[in-house]
């Protein structure tokens, strides 16, 4: 099945550094979304990028999409302790399927 696969599975960085995580998928998509999940909570939507877009920004977040490589990246700049969470990509293939990846666990070290 088409599934977004995040890479790396886990990432630890120092506070203030930038964090980059990647998502790969298998078939064509309408859009790709990134979500954050704090421990014990539901997912929170961060950003949606459509298949005809290459880059989007939202505050300290930057998302890129390369449809030729079937991949997306999420960059969090100037990381903070509050960014510690799991991050998921979700792809919409336009055929009644929205598939979430398994997530990247991000840990921001003080």
């Amino acid at each position, binding site marked *: 099945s088409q599934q977004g696969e995040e890479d790396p599975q886990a990432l630890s960085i120092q506070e203030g550094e930038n964090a980059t995580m990647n998502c790969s998928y298998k078939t064509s998509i309408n859009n790709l979304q990134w979500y954050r999940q704090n421990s014990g909570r539901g997912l929170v939507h961060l950003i*949606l990028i459509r298949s005809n877009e290459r880059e989007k920004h939202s505050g300290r977040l930057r998302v890129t999409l390369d449809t030729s490589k079937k991949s997306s990246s999420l960059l969090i700049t100037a990381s903070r302790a509050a960014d510690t969470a799991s991050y998921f990509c979700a792809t919409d293939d336009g055929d009644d399927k929205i598939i979430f990846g398994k997530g990247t666990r991000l840990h921001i070290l003080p």
Partner: protein
Amino acid sequence: DAGITQSPRHKVTETGTPVTLRCHQTENHRYMYWYRQDPGHGLRLIHYSYGVKDTDKGEVSDGYSVSRSKTEDFLLTLESATSSQTSVYFCAISGNWGQPQHFGDGTRLSIL
């Protein structure tokens, strides 16, 4: 936060018993979803609804049924719970298919 609540938040029950989880929204969103989240599998869609009495299966629908008799409520039922259904269950809502989803805080279900 979007107005979405799940109940109960925690439940422990025995194999073979029926279990119903409730999702309630105050946003009047058309789409409602049930997911399960398990280590190593991420989020997997169980069932979703696109309107009152309109539902469809997701990736892992076996052993689950749903009902939506009102716009604001989406029920997930395990007719005869099995240990493999131990999981954290999330409800989500969206205005339309493919739009950002708003999630509840989940129900932790343990089947002993």
